[in-house]
């Protein structure tokens, strides 16, 4: 809805034509003119005409030949009216073609920056992928190591269990673990020995199970071991054993790391 015409708007028109209007005056008049005021429009045209005449009273200044040539050439209007292009003097700064070239360079720079940002994102993604693959390789390496170790243990176990004349001793549960059981296997030819335990309870971190064999009436430490949640554990005896000299086997609970002499409760014996 247009604001109604008033003398106030008429008084603002000359300053508006001059370009001097600002603030609320400018806003209100522009709103009024936007409403299509039939009275203000022609008056504004008259004021603009006055200013044109004012401008036309300026002392004329003849443009340089270079400016004339450049204008006609840039506009593609040379024809017979325009003389041949002349070299630019130092006073003619920033020719239009240079501005266009600058704009093109700017566009290329913007495009280049966008490309750099894109590339940076890709590099970042690739770095993340590399880290993920590195972690995967590390996990797989650990898995391979674990499998290799298990394979070696299985090989050893097989070499013991499948050896001709292997000797086995069963150990029975004692005291608080009557349901537990154990078994030793000794290769009499190589002296390698293995022990497997079943049904033993898990121990606190400061405790461990320790295997002993008795030779010459004295206990000899044969290795420590823990058990999994199912109560199963195993140990490979690190020293060579002569089964003919072994009188008995036993498992005790000892402090973590084990002791050279048994001190704790006997849970398996055989």
């Amino acid at each position, binding site marked *: 809805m247009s604001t109604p015409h008033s003398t106030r708007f008429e008084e603002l028109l000359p300053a508006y034509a001059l370009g001097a*209007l600002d603030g609320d005056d400018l806003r209100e008049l522009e709103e009024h003119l936007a409403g299509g005021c039939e009275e203000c429009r022609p008056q504004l045209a008259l*004021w603009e005409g006055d*200013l044109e*005449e004012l401008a*036309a*009273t300026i002392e*004329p200044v003849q*443009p340089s030949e270079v400016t*004339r040539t450049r204008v006609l050439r840039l506009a593609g209007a040379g024809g017979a009216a325009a003389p041949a292009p002349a070299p630019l003097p130092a006073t003619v700064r920033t020719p239009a073609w240079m501005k266009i070239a600058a704009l093109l360079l700017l566009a290329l720079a913007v495009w280049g920056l966008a490309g750099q940002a894109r590339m940076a994102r890709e590099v970042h993604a690739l770095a993340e992928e590399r880290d993920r693959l590195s972690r995967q390789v590390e996990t797989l390496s650990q898995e391979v190591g674990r499998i290799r170790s298990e394979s070696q243990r299985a090989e050893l176990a097989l070499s013991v269990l499948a050896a001709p004349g292997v000797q086995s001793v069963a150990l029975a549960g004692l005291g608080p673990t009557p349901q537990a059981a154990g078994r030793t296997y000794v290769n009499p030819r190589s002296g390698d020995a293995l022990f497997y335990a079943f049904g033993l309870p898990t121990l606190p971190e400061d405790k461990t199970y320790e295997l002993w064999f008795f030779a010459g009436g004295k206990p000899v430490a044969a290795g420590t071991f823990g058990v999994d949640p199912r109560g199963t554990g195993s140990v490979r005896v690190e020293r060579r054993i002569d089964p003919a000299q072994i009188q008995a086997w036993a498992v005790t609970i000892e402090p973590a790391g084990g002791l050279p002499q048994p001190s704790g409760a006997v849970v398996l014996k055989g």
Partner: protein
Amino acid sequence: MLMNRVAARDGVAFARLFELHAPVALGLLDRILGRRGEAEEVLQEAFLQVWMQADRYDEARSTPRGWILMLARSRALDRLRRRDSSRRREEAAGEEAAAEAAIFPLGTERLEHQERQRLVSSALGQLSPEQRRCIELAFFEGLTHTQIAERLEAPLGTVKSRILLGMNKLRQALSPSS
């Protein structure tokens, strides 16, 4: 009509248009910018715009010269606004001293043989120096009411009145009955 031919991409017509109006346009640009090299640069831009947008010219609104001059003035004022403001103030201070003596380079002997221009010169002569100065700052430097008031350290209402009265005096002097 020349403008119609220019709008139809007639190079010869454009060259003729340039010969007719470029000197006055350059005089105006030189007056606004105060630097000949820069004025010639803006003249090139303005006439390139004329060539590219000649089809937008409306003969009902202005003469070809008026259209070209307003277009050139607009570009010059844009250029002026981009200049370093502190340097501009220094230049303005220098101009202030000479303002009373040579506010408008108008009403010269050269213009007296042309009736219309004589009328303008006469009208300008009827303005008070203060009115002329306010109009000059708006027209040649693109300043607004508020900026003129700050520049002249005058009340805003006074500046508005000076411009309104000055423009009305010009109108009266330029009207056909005068």
